[in-house]
């Protein structure tokens, strides 16, 4: 059933954008729950929280953070595109707006990844 949301064989870029939006929406929701649980650990004391930080703000975790940021940026930018179209606006330019959205996602993601890389690696 729900697998059909992600069947992209023979579909256009618009359907792929829909599947990715749904996927990233679910990923972000799961992340949000994990993130809130993580933050709540400060109630168990400063040491517990800082030991969490020490494990996750590390080069090993960087790849996950970079992927999460990609999911977040994609969901946000594509979400703005959807809001625009779902208001009945700019329907005719939907192809170019999709391409521009993808370009914005990639540019912002590369900049963010570079920033995170230099922060975690301390370079």
């Amino acid at each position: 059933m729900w697998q059909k949301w992600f069947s992209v064989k023979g579909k256009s870029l618009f359907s792929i954008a829909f599947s990715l939006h749904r996927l990233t929406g679910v990923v972000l929701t799961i992340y949000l729950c994990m993130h809130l649980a993580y933050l709540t650990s400060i109630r168990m004391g400063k040491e517990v929280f800082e030991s969490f930080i020490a494990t996750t703000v590390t080069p090993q975790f960087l790849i996950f953070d970079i992927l999460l940021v990609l999911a977040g940026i994609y969901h946000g930018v594509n979400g703005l595109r959807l809001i625009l179209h779902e208001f009945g606006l700019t329907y005719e330019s939907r192809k170019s707006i999709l391409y521009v959205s993808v370009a914005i996602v990639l540019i912002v993601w590369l900049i963010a990844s570079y920033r995170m890389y230099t922060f975690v690696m301390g370079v």
Partner: protein
Amino acid sequence: MDVEFRIRRFDGEKSYWQTFNIPVKRGMTVLEGLYYIKENLDGSLTFRASCRMAICGSCAVKINGKPRLACETQILEIGNSLEVEPLDNFKVIKDLVTDFEGFFKKHEAVKPYLIRKDDNYEEPVELIQSPKELHAYYDFTLCVKCGACYSVCPAAATRDDYLGPAAITAAYRFNADSRDEGEKIRLALVCGDNGVWRCHFAAECSEVCPKQIDPAKAVQKIRFKSAIETIKSIFR
């Protein structure tokens, strides 16, 4: 030139693939290929068609993964091997024939006809319309109810009761008609739980529509109207 037709068949119980090799001439359509198989190779092959000129909407099938009208798709434009399947999101009855009962019911449900207070069939009056008023809805009248749009819609894939792009487009076609007075009635019909708010703008319907009538556009236009009406109703 010989072309391979791989057809996904269904006999009421099981679904299976069958391959046929048929001689193809330039200009021959997929529908003609299906007729060739039925007449010369396997009389039990079942498919639906009527007009053979892209106007009745009976013959939509999936050809190499994309829904198209078999009667207006030329075999050699696709290549020398074809996969033909029934449309997705519809129940398969036999081979390429799917059940359109629900699809037509949804169309009927949006009241796709002029609604007027002064309906008088004994003494009909001519309703004048300017070319501009005609073009406000004309493109959307071209729908042939082929179901291609419905078959690729992710909302229809998981909600049997979703009205779907074609029915909502029909509602928009009449709402945008200057002679019509039924906009409020139709808005109430398409803005419910099974209506426009189920659309997530995958916009695939517009990509596959053989008449290029942009059903996704009609859905968004009517959705916007629905949002405005809902906000207005709060202050009423």
